[in-house]
């Protein structure tokens, strides 16, 4: 579903991500772990077609992000770590706007908006402008917007930040559901316990370079994911 090959992103003289290669198959939940500034957000944004890049190749469902970004974007959904949404729109206007852009038919959009907004307990607030929403409500709205076109690949940057326990649980269920239907999920997180329980595969990125990658068992062995991660960070320090 997602192939990242020798991806390198530079900001001036600073190399944010250096020669990163990953592959995420259909049905997989892939966790992306690293310290602050390691290059997680840069990678996710490049996959989402937001950040242009010069070196390497990224393919979504076999389509090159660089050569055919619109076709890739039709297949994926991206949720940033801090969902800045259009504050002048109401929740329902925002969702309808996203549905228009993804050209979701009328019946499907009404059905999905109803289903997910009921699930996240947001239905009653859809008439209010986004400016009145809390961080968690914005996060939920961004999630509903991302799910509205049933993406094959869901990209999420720190998706659990700001969500209440029920919403976090519901999101995990949705993630599992997407994978069972043949989709894939690529997300970054600092909550290692969640990654350990939820992910089929995990990659650890350190200063723009891939430090470890594989199935959860391959990466952590007999240790916990937290121990493995801390050992890798300590290696760097020493």
């Amino acid at each position, binding site marked *: 579903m997602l192939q990242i090959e020798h991806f390198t992103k530079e900001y001036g003289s600073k190399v944010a991500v250096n020669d990163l290669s990953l592959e995420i198959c259909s049905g997989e939940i892939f966790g992306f772990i690293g310290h602050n500034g390691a290059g997680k957000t840069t990678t996710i944004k490049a996959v989402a077609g937001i950040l242009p890049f010069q070196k390497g190749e990224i393919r979504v469902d076999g389509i090159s992000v660089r050569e055919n970004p619109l076709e890739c974007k039709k297949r994926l959904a*991206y949720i940033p770590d801090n969902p800045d949404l259009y504050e002048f729109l109401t929740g329902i206007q925002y969702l309808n706007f996203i549905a*228009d*852009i993804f050209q979701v038919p009328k019946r499907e959009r009404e059905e999905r908006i109803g289903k997910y907004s009921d699930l996240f307990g947001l239905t009653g607030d859809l008439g*209010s402008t986004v400016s009145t929403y809390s961080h968690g409500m914005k996060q939920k709205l961004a999630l509903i917007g991302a799910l509205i076109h049933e993406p094959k690949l869901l990209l999420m940057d720190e998706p659990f930040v700001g969500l209440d326990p029920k919403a976090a649980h519901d999101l995990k269920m949705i993630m599992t559901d997407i994978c069972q239907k043949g989709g894939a999920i690529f997300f970054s997180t600092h909550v290692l316990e969640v990654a350990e329980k939820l992910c089929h595969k995990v990659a650890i990125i350190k200063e723009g370079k891939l430090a470890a990658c594989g199935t959860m068992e391959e990466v952590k062995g007999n240790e916990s994911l937290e121990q493995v991660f801390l050992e890798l960070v300590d290696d760097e320090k020493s």
Partner: protein
Amino acid sequence: MRNLKILLAVKLRGALYAPGRRGKKASLGRKILMGFLFLYVIGVMMALFGATTAGLVSSLAPLGLSWMALAVGAFSSAALCFILTVFSMQSQIFQAKDGDLLLSLPVTPLQIAASRLLSLLLLEYAYNALVMIPTVGVYCYLVRPGLSFYPMLLVLLLALPLLPLSLAGAVGYLLAQVGRLLGRGKNIIMLLLTAAAFLVYLYFCMNLNSYITLLIQRGEELSHVFRKAMPPFYHFAIALEQGSFSSFLWAVLWGILPAGVLLWLVQKGFLDLRSTSGVKAVYRKKPLRVSCPWVAVCRKEGARLLSMPTYLFNCGIGALLMVAMAVMVVWKGTDALQALGAVPQIQELIAPALMAAMCFCAATTCTTSPSISLEGNRLWVLRSSPLSPRDVFLGKLAVNMILLLPAVAVSVILLAFSKGFSLLDLVLFFLVPSLLGLLIALFGLYANLLWPRLDYTSENAVVKQSASVMAASFGGMGAMLALSLCYWFLARKVMSYHVYCFCALVVLMVGCILLWRLILTKGAEEYEQL
């Protein structure tokens, strides 16, 4: 005091922070260009106020009423300060985005309020200087006041902006309270209030000459009215002209007392407005409207335009002006047009003059010039969606034309009632301003793609002060002037007005096509790099 200094320093640094493209510093050429434009605007305004003062002093001095020139200057300065501050009150104080952060720090609401008001006061001193430097300069040159005039002047100039600041604060507080109660309806209230204020201002400007004439003719009588109706400005002027200490005290008190009340109101409002919740709209499921992607962008942009009165009135002012002008022509100008039409030399200039006015209005309607910048940190929504740059640009352009075209159409229909114009005139009245408006909208969009400002702290700053908005404003006026001057000095001798309009239509059309192609190629590349 230390906290106040820190807060004020941060606020001023934020106000002066103007990053160039993608956070880089602005180039020297751009700085020079912006500085030149800035100086031009300041020069024009100062010349205007200086000339008004000279006219008033020379007419009123023989009657012993030269103080009225100072009073009129003080009133004009206060009015300018009020108009330019009242909207900043909302964004800077009552709906400040950093309010929660500041309230969580070990600083008192009083210190926060004082730092905010001081930063606005410093801004008002700049506006005040625009009016009072030429007013006082011309007054001193013509009247030659004694030495005691100057120390008093210094104190009074420091106190003068306090009153408009207080009034703007009171109105801002009221609007914030009303907004809290009305929820989404507050934008409509703000729009109506801004429209009403604008029409009053327009009416005042149109009658400015008659007011000045009235002031000169009935100075004695009006001086009593001034004394009773506008005591702060009366005392300001009398203190300076006659050296009256009691008037001096009154003028200072008229500034300080309301400012004290405002300070109390703001520090109270900073907590109150945040601790009470507004009206919540409960959503009831209803059928959703389906649109194609570029129409969805257009609807989203329309919602943004209607949610920001400053955006609508800074970038859509021309459309409103055009309709107001057509109403004036039909309401008051039909007889005048018929009388002018009797003189053949003048008759042939009526349609070109009206065309120039309509083109001016169309050229000042440009919602596209800040539209890319206004995406700000929400740009990810468009960039991560399967939206081609063409759809984004088309949606933004459509909003501009949806605002402009009905205004042009209504104006043409109204002009049709004045019976002074042929069918061809009316068709050209529709086509030329519409195409010029489209050209400026395209230019504004391209300018914003070249000079985006995405890391702003206040949307008002983007709408009012960004490079692309200024480029579109001056570009629009330049295009209108070029068309007018070309007709007046060159084309008029070799072709008729109608033939010239057709030539202008062809030029505008070619310009639009070329700019659209440029936007779809170079502009799209710039968009992809944002």
